[in-house]
């Protein structure tokens, strides 16, 4: 299989995602410049973290109008896999591939630290190598990760099992103390109804090797690979 890692001006986790997919996981990976529109040959597109277009206006608000996004929407409509990490998740919300919106963190600061996540749905192509209820250790690094969705929208996410990851403590308890940014229902990652577009605020590429403090994130990339094989 082949991963495509999109580079917008201002992306800064592109090389980290590329490294995780290619050097750590050992799969094929290629960069895709934001002006390119041909996605043939790719099995999974990764929208990496960073500050696309400087996060000016609002994170992801300008990137969604980028040329490549039309192709990515088409790509997703065909059922191919799209993974948005951090700023990539924000772009997926802005372009409407996933529901909801991001607010600034409740403490109004950028937060970079390891947090715990509870796997709420391990039946997805992105998480099938985890067990439901498993507690993962992964870092977050964002200023706008306070996920918001209307009560109706939240109910739909819950009813359809679209909430994939939630913030929890080391023991797996999901409560407000374990919520780093104020996200509704401790939501850290969601998937679309069809199950082929996944967005999450934590950084699996930063937790794909034990030497970095955790390799819990690698199974996300590996899940995609194994699902496709």
């Amino acid at each position, binding site marked *: 299989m082949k991963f495509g890692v999109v580079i917008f001006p201002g992306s800064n986790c592109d090389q980290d995602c590329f490294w995780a997919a290619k050097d750590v996981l050992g799969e094929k990976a290629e960069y895709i410049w934001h002006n390119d529109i041909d996605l043939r040959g790719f099995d999974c597109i990764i929208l990496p973290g960073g500050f696309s277009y400087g996060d000016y206006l609002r994170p992801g608000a300008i990137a969604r109008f980028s040329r490549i996004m039309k192709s990515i929407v088409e790509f997703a409509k065909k059922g191919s896999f799209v993974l948005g990490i951090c700023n990539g998740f924000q772009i997926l919300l802005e372009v409407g591939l996933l529901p909801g919106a991001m607010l600034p963190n409740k403490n109004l600061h*950028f937060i970079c630290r390891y947090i715990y996540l509870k796997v709420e749905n391990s039946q997805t192509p992105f998480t099938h190598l985890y067990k439901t209820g498993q507690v993962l250790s992964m870092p977050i690094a964002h200023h706008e990760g306070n996920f918001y969705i209307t009560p109706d929208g939240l109910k739909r996410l819950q009813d359809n099992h679209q909430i994939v990851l939630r913030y929890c403590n080391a023991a797996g308890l999901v409560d407000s103390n374990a919520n780093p940014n104020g996200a509704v229902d401790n939501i850290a990652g969601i998937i679309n109804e069809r199950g082929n577009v996944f967005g999450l605020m934590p950084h699996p590429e930063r937790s794909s090797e034990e030497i970095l403090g955790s390799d819990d994130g690698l199974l996300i990339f590996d899940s995609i690979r194994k699902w496709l094989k």
Partner: protein
Amino acid sequence: MAEVTAEVYPVRNSVKDDSERIISNGVYRGLGLTDELYQRILKILKRQPTLTELAMFSVEWSEHCGYLCSRKWLKLLPKKGKFKTLIGEDSGGIIVDDLAVIFKMESHNHPSQVEPKQGAATGIGGIIRDIFTAGARPIALMDSLRFGELDKPYNRYLLKGVVDGIQFYGNCVGIPTAGGEIYFEDAYTGNCLVNVMCVGVADKNKIMRARVKGKGNAIIYAGASTGRDGIGGCSVLASAEFGKDEEKRPTVQIGDPFMEKCLIEATLEAIATGYVAGIKDMGAAGLTCSTSEMASSGGMGVDIDLKYVPRREENMQPWELMMSESQERMVLCVKKGKEKAIEKIFSKWGLNAKVIGRVTDDKMVRVKDSGKTVACIPAEALTSPPMYDMPYKEPGYIKEIRKLNIKTLGQPGDYNKALLKILSSPTVINKHWVYEQYDHMVQTNTVVLPGSGDSVVLRLKGTSKAIAVTTDCNGRYCYIEPYHGAQIAVAEAARNLVCVGAEPAAVTDCLNFGNPQKPERFWQFKNCLEGIVSACRFLHLAVVSGNVSFYNENPRGAIYPTPTIGMVGVIDDVKKITTQVFKKEDELIILLGKCIEELGGSEYLKVIHKKICGRVPRLNLDLEARLQKAVLRMIEEGLLSSAHDCSEGGLAVALAECCVSQKDAMIGAEIDNLPAKIRVDALLFGETQSRIIISAATRYLKPIKQIARAYRIPLCVLGRTTKEKRLKILSYIDLPLDKIFDTWWNSFDREVNR
């Protein structure tokens, strides 16, 4: 105002614009030039300068850019050490196998005091450009900050503003802000210090130089457009004391980290083509500095026309264009015929790239404005400001402040309380409130995170190696005893590297002092510099780059002399890294080094007794070097579970940190043996140098002892790590770790947001 008796030289016909020639004394003084410098300019040009020329001299010959007062002494810094060094125009580094590790530290003190967010942000932008201009990809940033005490609201405002500026700029550009240090002392009220270090990595054979080459090659301006921001930043703002009511905000630049991120990528891509013959960023002194220094370093001349310079404001005058310190701009010398290829790369990243001139062989910097010459100066003379031999004199306070009669000093009745009080001192507390606002993990190289080791460690992808980075300086020590204080800064930086398992390799320094025109301030500078020189020589460390920041004073007085040391160390095997936290229960806790009854200049004296006095701790460089070698050997042989240096707050604070720095896995300690029969407060909180606390499995005691003996290092088994989550030190201290953790982890937040 006194009239200057300047000899009036005839105007040469190379400069034709009459309006440019009207110079009054007020003009050059307003630009920060002295009468003496103006006379020199007249001698060089053999005529009156134009306004543009005067502007160019004023920035190039500012203390900030020209090192007029410091240059004589900076020559003493060792340029060679145990690692092979590379010394470039804008930065320096070491060779590690096939890689060049390039690094430099720089100050942005005055801009940050005036406008903390943008001041700090643009300080980061500037130092990053110094690194990638050498063709190196920046892999880490470190911030060494000094503020006045947090009880003053303005100091809290400065701290918040500076941290905000660092996160605003550093997070966006995608370089981990991996570590640093913050000290709080009243001496920094009114003049905070913001020193930023950047580390980059390049192929050792592909390092770029900041010089022009080849007659006819193009001079390309790349990056952001030029505005009126930062005019006089390096001269009027950075090279003068703060007065009483001056409004200097317009001299601070405004940064755009998104532009910088694109500039990094475009520049590295441009360099990779092989078409770039030389490159320099436009930092302090902007277009003047970049063009004239590149010409002078290359032994060539440049001929540029300002009409091609992209601008963001209308009606900018030539002198404004030459002085502007607008951010995110570069000058490239590009091989003739390859201009289009380079322009295309910058345009792909949405950036300007314009040919503004050509390399000449007449060694002149010639600046035109739509064809009309507005400046024509010999490059060599413009970039060779005078070097002054500044007078120095021991300050009056020195004798008094070193006095301390320890016998009249009472001891705390409750050592638990004393420990918690010192732990909650803003200088000692854990700074996660700060470093969690910085992206310290991007690029996925940070293998020792801030707060968990004595230095941060970054692996070098594609190799088995890693580098460790630290910054250090106790300004209070340097105030009391500049020579010893500076030596300690070097020794402690090296010790911090050793504690994570890194061999200290080389130094960058950022020398922050008061007004060099005052002999008592210059004495501090001279003594600190000599301290750095002696310690670096002894430890075989080269000083590969650095920066001097003078005039850090306001009507209340000067800052503590603060020669911040940035140091890089090399770890051969990334798997052999040690951190400070105790790892397992029932392991031995051992102190390497000895405890001496010394309390002078300590955090304990300041926090508990409200005194800043007494001789600073003695440093025996020979013992220090042996200690460092011994600990590296122990780590190399896999004997240690943890290693932590004793610094501010002494043994008790260091032990507390070993217990609680892993939030989810705290380990207790029971100390039942202390090495010396000295006063209890000196034993617990004294800051004797050359001490490292290690922990290890019992079975390793024998080999550890053997190594200690081989290097003649005093060793004392203090006690054991425990399952019980308490820190117990003989009968003096007995505290639950939760309590220690809460004080150490949460006090900073409470201080900042009080």
